[in-house]
Every structure is written in C-alpha cells, then in structure tokens.
C-alpha cells in the first residue's frame, strides 16, 4: 500500500474526508460510464449508419412509392424525406439511453452506482444530463448525415443539389431534437420500470399520442394537440403552418417539451428516492 499510516496495533484518529463531491463530478462519471461501454459506442455509430441508410432508401424509393419522383418534388420535400433518417436514428438513441439505465438494473450494477452516489435525485439528473448531451450531439450529427445522404442520392441520379435555406436548417435542427427529448423521457421511465423495455414503451406510447389525438374532434386538436411533444417538435421544426388549428408560438412549444421532460424526471425521482434499489 502506498499510504503509510501508523504502525500496526495503534489506532490513529483518521482524517475526515475532504471536500464534498458535487454534481459536476457525477455528470462526468456518467459520461465516462457511457463512453467506456462498448455497446453504447457501437449503438451511436449504428444510429448514424441507420440515419444515412434510411435517408438514401427513402429518397431512392420515393418515386415508386408515392408516384411523385425526386425530379418533381420541392426542395423542402427532399430534405424532409431525408430527415426521416434522423427519426430512425432517434429510435436507436432512445433505446440506447433507456439501455444505460435498464442494463444497470439487469446486471445489478445499480447497487454499486447508488453506493457511490447515494443522493439518488442527483444521480438521476446526472444521467439525464448525460443522455441529453450525448443524444443531442449524435442527433445533430444524424441530421447532418441524413441531409448529406439525401444530397448524395440527388447527385447519383444526376439532379441538382438542394439550395439550403434557413427553413431547411430549422427543419434539420427540429428533427435532431427528437432524439434528446424522447431519450430523456425513456431514461426517466427506465428508472420507473427498472428496465429498458419499460422506458422504451413509455416513450413509444408518448410518440403515438399526437396520432391518437388526431383522430379526435377538432376541439382536441386545438386544445390538446399543441401540448403533445410530437406536435411541439413539429412546431419547433417549422412543419406546422402558423394557420393550423394546433399552432402555438414556438416558445410555448419549447416550454411544453421542457414541462414533459420535467414531469417525467419528477416521477422518476419520487419513485427512485422512495424505493429500495
């Protein structure tokens, strides 16, 4: 051992441990945990590859499947079709995020984690921040990859490239926010259900809420739909026209997303604090 304490037999007064451990170290620990796990790294690469693959596939097949080929489509159409690759990547990222929690429960490592960081809400928030940062970064990359893949298809079939404007950038950024939002939501519910599947299921249910609301009478579409996360993301991405019945100011849409995330994390925090590990 490197430390030299008093000789055997004596019982020295041990020093009190130093400064308390803060939130930033917990976040750094969670980032480290994420990056040092092979599976996570592979899934992030997989998300990017899937983004490109789906973008290429849909751009190539849009003609035969919709009857309107690439050459007859507006530039926004081509970009939004490419961005479906980002949506696919978001599903992978959501699964990865939920898996970082679910696997800790499955392996039993959660006990080690909560022994090292017994302040559970702090750990939960550190996990959420980690998921948010990593899925935002990979989500933005996936957005870029999807758009570039779509452009590559245009090049391949000999069509002119799309002239990117601010609207299209907004669309891409909007698509990229899908991943962090649903990933954080899935993370929170992986804590609640103590497994990956529970977290993913909760997020998928949330994903389909706007569709279900869409089947309901118009009152719901004016008063409920704007406050579903799916619609909020559409509004932020500029895909919901301002004259639509479900349109609200983008700031309200952003606030809606934050409120949903906060609510999910609050539920997880209450459950985590109260329950035995």
């Amino acid at each position: 051992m490197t430390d030299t304490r008093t000789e055997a037999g004596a019982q020295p007064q041990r020093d009190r441990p130093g400064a308390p451990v803060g939130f930033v170290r917990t976040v750094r620990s969670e980032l480290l945990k994420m990056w040092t796990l092979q599976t996570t790294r592979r899934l992030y690469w997989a998300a990017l590859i899937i983004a490109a693959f789906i973008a290429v596939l849909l751009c190539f097949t849009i003609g035969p499947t919709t009857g309107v080929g690439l050459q007859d489509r507006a530039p926004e159409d081509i970009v939004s079709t490419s961005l479906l690759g980002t949506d696919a990547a978001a599903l992978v990222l959501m699964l990865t995020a939920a898996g970082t929690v679910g696997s800790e429960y499955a392996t039993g490592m959660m006990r080690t984690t909560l022994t090292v960081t017994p302040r559970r809400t702090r750990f939960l928030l550190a996990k959420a921040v980690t998921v948010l940062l990593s899925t935002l970064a990979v989500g933005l990359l996936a957005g870029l990859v999807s758009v570039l893949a779509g452009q590559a298809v245009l090049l391949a079939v000999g069509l002119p490239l799309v002239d990117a404007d601010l609207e299209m950038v907004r669309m891409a950024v909007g698509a990229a926010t899908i991943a962090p939002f649903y990933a954080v939501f899935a993370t929170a519910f992986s804590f609640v259900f103590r497994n990956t599947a529970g977290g993913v299921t909760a997020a998928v249910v949330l994903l389909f809420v706007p569709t279900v609301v869409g089947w309901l009478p118009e009152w719901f579409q004016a008063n409920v739909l704007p406050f579903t996360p799916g619609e909020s993301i559409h509004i932020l991405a500029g895909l919901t026209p301002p004259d639509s019945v479900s349109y609200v100011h983008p700031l309200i849409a952003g606030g809606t997303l934050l409120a949903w995330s906060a609510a999910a994390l609050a539920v997880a925090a209450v459950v985590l604090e109260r329950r035995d590990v």
Partner: protein
Amino acid sequence: MIEVGGLTKRYGDVTAVEDLTFSVAPGHITGFLGPNGAGKSTTMRMILGLDRPTVGFARVSGHDYRGLPAPLREVGALLDPTALHKGRSARAHLRWQAEAGGISRGRVDEVLGLVGLEDVADRLVGALSLGMRQRLGLAGAMLGDPGVLMLDEPLNGLDPEGIVWVRTLLQSLAAEGRTVFLSSHLMNEMEATADHVLVIGGGRMITDMSIDELVRSGAGARVTVSSPRADRLSEELLRFGATVTERDGDRFTVTGLDAADIGGLAAQYGLPLHELTPWRPSLEDAFMTLTRDRGRHRGADLSRAKESTR
C-alpha cells in the same frame, strides 16, 4: 464505526431482519456470520442506504449513509462482485467510480496494483474470472482509502492463495485503525480472519462476541487432563467452578476452565501434570449449535464429529 439500532426489514409477511442492534468498532475485523437467508446482505444494504429499514436505523461514522458528503472516501463497500457491466474494462470500471467519488485518477492505478490486477486492467470485465472480479471489487472498495470497509462474502471465488492475501490485507487495514466488517459463510476462514463475530439466523441476532468467547462458549470446549494425582486435582478444579467428567484412571475431562487456568492451578498446588490437551470445537461446530433451527434452509444433519485441537 458502524452503528445499527432496532433494525428491522419486512417484505410483506416475510421478516428478513428483525430488531438487530449492534455496533462495529474500528481497529478490528468483525465477521458477520449466518446461514443463507439469515439477513446478512439485507442488513448490509440497509447500512449502505440501498434498502430502507422498516423500523430502526443504521449509521456510518455517525451519519445516515445517504447523508454522507463524500461516501466513497468514508466507506468502501463490496457487494456482489459479478454485478457489473461486462463490456467495460477493469480500469474503466474503477475510473467512473473514482470520478463519482471525488477521487484522483492516479488512485485507480494504485488500487489496481494493490490487488494485483495491473496486468489485466485493460481487459473487459466479462473476461475476468470470479476471483479477479472479487479483487476488482476489493479495489473499488479501497479507492477512497476509507475508514470503514464493508464486504459481503469477499472470499468467495478466491483461490487459497487469494484468501490468505485478503485476510492479511484486512488485518493490516484493521491494524491501521479502520473498521472492517465482512460477511461470510466460510467458518474456517472467519475463524482465521475475524477478531469479533456477529452471528445471525432467521434475521435475528444470535450472538455478538469475540471469536474466542464464541468458540469457548459455543459447544463443548473442554480440556483433557492426566495427572498421577487425579483425585486431588479434580477436587481443586471443582472448587474453582469447573466440571469434571469422563474419569478414566488418571485421565479426566474438564469443562468451564481453560488449559491455562488448569495448568496454573496444578502448579500452585504442586500437582504434576502428564497431559493437558485443550479440545476446541471449530467455529463451524459452535456456529451450527447456535444457529440450529434458526436458519431458513436447513440441510441434513451432517456428522459433527470433527473437532480441531489447538
């Protein structure tokens, strides 16, 4: 210092731990003994704030564990050594803990050296043997150079050499004034390792005493004495509160006094001794006697003929 008072844990109708009160003092190795299902791990989880007691309290260094400002520098814990992500390297597994515990990165290499894992530090945890994972768990417990160590079955999966190594390590840690608390069902190892034992069965405290006391009181500690003046000697021994049995010529058996007392007494009265043999039941025998009918999973009554002599 670990203090536990009135600690009780119920899961519905099942009581896993019932009204445990004890303290684990620094400077010693305290063993936590009990058959499977006795409540050892549940008790340790409650001390670490992982499970909430139904009634009672558990404190480490005077604090509720969950209220410690820097828990890893205060308590080193080893629970299940196999409960970790298998796709991470041994070094990475320690690094995230060090980061979360406010411990320098250099300490990770130090503890890897301490437990003898420096050569496999970059191997994935999944490729390590149970013994190596046990060492990795010990390295994790040592990261914060803590004053309290709490280890659940730390000897499981270790080879004989490893067991001796852990025992020596724990003894030196206790000698440095740390609190060392370990559970085990390996009675022989506990006998060679711990100074003090807490024995529980069925979630309840059965005994809380030093190893020597336990063995002496446990079951049939006795001394075989042989003397040409057996009558006179046994008379004196009886006067000092001993019980004399199995008289056979010059030989007889004494319970209630140990060999040193008997030898001293014989010298005092000038009585020659030809034989003085302490028969000491093993901790295992003492343990079986104490926990009989208390454990949840009682196996067949194995022959208890084995005795060890010291």
